[in-house]
Each structure stands twice: as structure tokens, then as C-alpha cells.
């Protein structure tokens, strides 16, 4: 298979397979959650569930002072690589083009210099986060093979994207194909791993806020 054929495959059938598995997987998992339902709360309410739920979806992103003091590294490093990922993925022109093709929506892109810096910062932070996970007693205890797999699946697109952009490693068509393939791997694994938190986080936060607001406490 020539390089261009490989690239055409990942842009074609490969993408299709990955998308189908990703979409189907996410829909099934979210359905599995919602269709379990929950019992109605019969106690006298002190506050609104909907308001509380919506509030917590946003407010949980801002830690309180003592939590920030106690979990500083986790919070700061988590934000750095998430924001870095967000900038790199969402503001690089070719990526925006992809979204436009799929959904019709697009927005302005940022200069490649910023994207480049963002990718580098994310990669470095992810490496530091991994080291922390391996050394911290609680994290080492909690971590499963799934956590490490997810780390790898997250950092590979960043590294291969960086390499493709900077012409490091293999020739351009091959590197670009590998970059796209790494994202397809991420998509395929997504519904089977903790990456689902991207979709279930708002649900969990909503429940948390709703339950707490019912009792009159903003969580």
C-alpha cells in the first residue's frame, strides 16, 4: 500500500468505522445510564433541582479555596492539559474545516504558532501528569490499565500531530495518516473507557447539584 493509499484509507473507511463505533458506543452508554431512571424524591424540597443541577455543571469547574490548596497539582495540571487540548484541537484551521464539513459550523482559527505552543505545553503536562500518577500513593493505588491506556490514546494524537506538522519522523503523507489513525484509535476506544467522562460529566454534575439543591445546599 502506498503512502497516499494509506492516507486515503484513514481518511475514508478508517474514519467511517471509527465514527460508527464511537457514535454507537456513546449513544448506547448514555442510554444505559438514563434508562435506569431514578425514583422521585418525596421529601419536601428546599430548592429547585433543575437550577441546582445546571448551577453545579458550571460551578464544579471552580474549586473552593481549601480544595485548591490541597489538590493544587491535580487541579492545575488537569486544567493546563485540558485547555491545551481544547486550543490545539478546536482552533487549528484544518480541524475546524473537518467540523465544518461534518456539521456546517465553523469559527475563526488561531495562528499556527499558538497551536504549536499549546500542543507542546499539553504534551509536557501529560508526561508530568503520568509521572505524578505513577508516584502518588493514592493514584498508583486507584489506577487501572484503562487509565494508562487512556493516557496513551490522548497523548498520541498530540505527538503525532506535532510530528506531522513539523515534518519529523516519517514522510508527510505517512505522518499525517498516522496522526489521523491515532485519533481513530481514540474514537474506537472512547465508549469503552473513562473517556466517556466527556459526555457523562455534565450528567453526573447535574445529578450532584440537583440532589444537593433539593436539600438547600449549593454544591
Amino acid at each position: 500500500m502506498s503512502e497516499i493509499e494509506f492516507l486515503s484509507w484513514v481518511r475514508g473507511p478508517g474514519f467511517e468505522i471509527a465514527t460508527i463505533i464511537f457514535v454507537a458506543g456513546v449513544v448506547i452508554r448514555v442510554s444505559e445510564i438514563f434508562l435506569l431512571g431514578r425514583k422521585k424524591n418525596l421529601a419536601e424540597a428546599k430548592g429547585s433541582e433543575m437550577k441546582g443541577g445546571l448551577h453545579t455543571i458550571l460551578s464544579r469547574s471552580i474549586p473552593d479555596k481549601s480544595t485548591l490548596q490541597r489538590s493544587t497539582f491535580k487541579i492545575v495540571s488537569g486544567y493546563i492539559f485540558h485547555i491545551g487540548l481544547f486550543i490545539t484541537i478546536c482552533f487549528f484551521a484544518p480541524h475546524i474545516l473537518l467540523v465544518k464539513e461534518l456539521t456546517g459550523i465553523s469559527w475563526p482559527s488561531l495562528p499556527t504558532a499558538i497551536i504549536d505552543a499549546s500542543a507542546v505545553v499539553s504534551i509536557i503536562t501529560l508526561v508530568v501528569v503520568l509521572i505524578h500518577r505513577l508516584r502518588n500513593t493514592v493514584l498508583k493505588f486507584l489506577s487501572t490499565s484503562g487509565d494508562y491506556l487512556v493516557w496513551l490514546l490522548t497523548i498520541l494524537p498530540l505527538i503525532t500531530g506535532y510530528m506531522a506538522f513539523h515534518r519529523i519522523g516519517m514522510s508527510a503523507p505517512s505522518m499525517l495518516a498516522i496522526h489521523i489513525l491515532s485519533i481513530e484509535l481514540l474514537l474506537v476506544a472512547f465508549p469503552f473507557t473513562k473517556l466517556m467522562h466527556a459526555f457523562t460529566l455534565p450528567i453526573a454534575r447535574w445529578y450532584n447539584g440537583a440532589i444537593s439543591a433539593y436539600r438547600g445546599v449549593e454544591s
Partner: protein
Amino acid sequence: MMIDNKNLKDKTLGDALRSQGISRRSFLKFCAATASMMALPPSMIPAIAEALEKAKKPSVIWLSFQECTGCTESLTRAHTATIENLIFDSISLDYHHTLQAASGEAAEEARTEAMKENWGEYLLVVDGSIPTKDMGYSTIAGMSNLDMFLETAAGAAAIISVGTCAAFGGIPHANPNPTGAYSVHDIIKQYGDREVEGISPELVSNGRLADKPVITVPGCPPIPVVITGVLTHYLTFGAIPELDHLGRPKAFYGSSIHDRCYRRPFYDKGLFAETFDDEGAKKGWCLYKLGCKGPTTYNACATTKWNNGTSFPIESGHPCLGCSEPDFWDGGGFYKALSIPTVDIAGAAIYAAAGAAAAGVALGALNKNKKQKTISEHSKTTIDDLEK
């Protein structure tokens, strides 16, 4: 163009150039330009000049198979008398369908005679792909392309595949490849060990076909000066230049169009033409969104350009087709940007979501069922049930 071979065969290249009226100064200028293009240091210029001076006009046999003659057109485009053309005249082009004067049996005789006389020393240039599904798709004088190639390659000192068809299969190789078109490399890989009946019993093949140096000069067509640059290198050093993983000379195919494109600053700033006639297009912004394959294409178009450095496709406002890459015809559409999938993803996603929703409902029903069972199976826990 075609000068009687026999007279010029013993003249050196230097003689030939002087007889064409090329001054020493022009000649040295050409050598300097060639050196810089080949990424050779200026100290090499005298060596190039000397070598070219003394070089005996090598015999070149040019085989054209399933091709459109575009490569020849590109090379011989002589709207002005260029050095390249003259150099071209300074090789002994002993066989070329379009350019030779002879035809029919006389032409074939010219080929076999040239082979016999220069056995082991002639250069074999190939353009066009070689069909393998049915040899009848392309024959010359009743001989299949494959047989002619193998026979001629047996005594060649080196093989140069010119144009994307010979290099990678090109247009004929595009889906569904009805003729079973092969590139030169493919042929060598598959048939390289085949025993070939030589054109004359005394002439034994000078080495395995698989071991012969092959230079790949792709492009649809390739840039003229790239050909002559390669030839010059061969003439000067008697060896092939440094090649990349696809057999292309790194001097010309070492960087991608994207990395040398003058519109790159627009890409980096995020300024793109959205259509062929919008403001961005008029301002000369990056053509990525219009499907430019510059990022994945290795060639010298962005620096060397075409028609003596006049322009190249991107400069003229058209995205790069990626014509020096294998399978560029099947590369997902000329006007589809590289980051866009080549199939209807949105459609696939919707089907997947619909199917999954159904599956989700089914699973949800299963879950609910299970919970119902746990509730019905649950016996009230009393204080007697707290200990085993």
C-alpha cells in the same frame, strides 16, 4: 532536435555545447545553477564543469509505455533555447517514439543497435506505466511493454523512471486500474529475477535487474530542470544522487510544497481562500481549504517552479494536486482538503446513532427488567438478617 547519432557519438559533451554556440560563461553559469539546485557546495562547480566537458555523450534509450507524452512535452518545451534543451541534445537519444525520425522496423533496429553498441553503459529512461492484466493493452512492434522493458533493462547501466506513471503507476493505476498498470518499481520487484532471452547470445545481463540503480522522477509531468539535474548528476559522478524512501532524488523531492510555499505565512496566520473567486483567493491566500495537497506532496514546484521559474499551480491560484505522489488520483479528491474525510461521515454517524438508540432502548429495557426482578426478589431485611 535529433542529430545523426553516428557523427556525434565520439564528440564529448563539451564539444557538442561549443558547436551549439554556448559560451564558456553560460556553461559555467549552468553548472553553478545545477550545483546549487543539487545542494552541492560551490567548490563542486569546477568538478561538474570538468566532468560535463569531458563526458562522452551517453546513449539514452527512452521507452514510452502507457503514457500521455506529457513528460516528453514538458522536457522538450522549447519556447526559448534553454540550456536544458541543449544539454538534452547533448545526449545521444537513440530511441524515443516522439522525437526520433525513424519509424517502424527501423526504429526498433535503432534501439537494438544502440543496446548492442553500448551494452552495459546506456541509460534506460521509462515513462508511462506497464500493463500486466492483458499484454495486449499496450504493445510496441508486437512486443509487450513488459518484455520490451525487461529486454532493454538487461543491459542498462541505470534506469530512470520519469513521470508519475512510470514512477508509481500514475493515471492508468487509478481505481479500478483496468489494465493492471504497474510502475517500474513494481515490475522490478515482481519480475526482477526472470530469465530474459537477450537480444543477442553474447550479451549477458550485466547484473540482476533488482540490483540496478533506479532513480524515480515523479510528477505529472515532472519539472524539466529536475530531469536535467538528475542527468547532470549522473553524468558528473557516474552514480545516482541521494534518494528518499520512494526513490526520488532528495535534492528535488526533499521538501514538501507546503514547506516551501510562498503562501505559507497565510496558512500559519489562518487566512484561507474559501472559493476560487472570493476575496481571499484574490488576495492570494492559502488554498488549503480548496483541497491543496501541498502538505503531503514532495516536489520542487514551489522553489524551482515551471516555465523557467514563471509560476506554479498554487501561484496561479489552483491547489496542488499532489501529482508527484503515488496514487494521487485516488487521494480523496483534488478539491477536498486533507483534513476532511473522503466518505460521508455525517451520514454514517446518523445511522450509527439511530441504530445505537434502538440498541440502547433494548439494553435499557433489560436493565429495567433486572431492577424490577431485584425489587420483587427482595425480601425485607430484618434485624435477624444482619448476621450470617
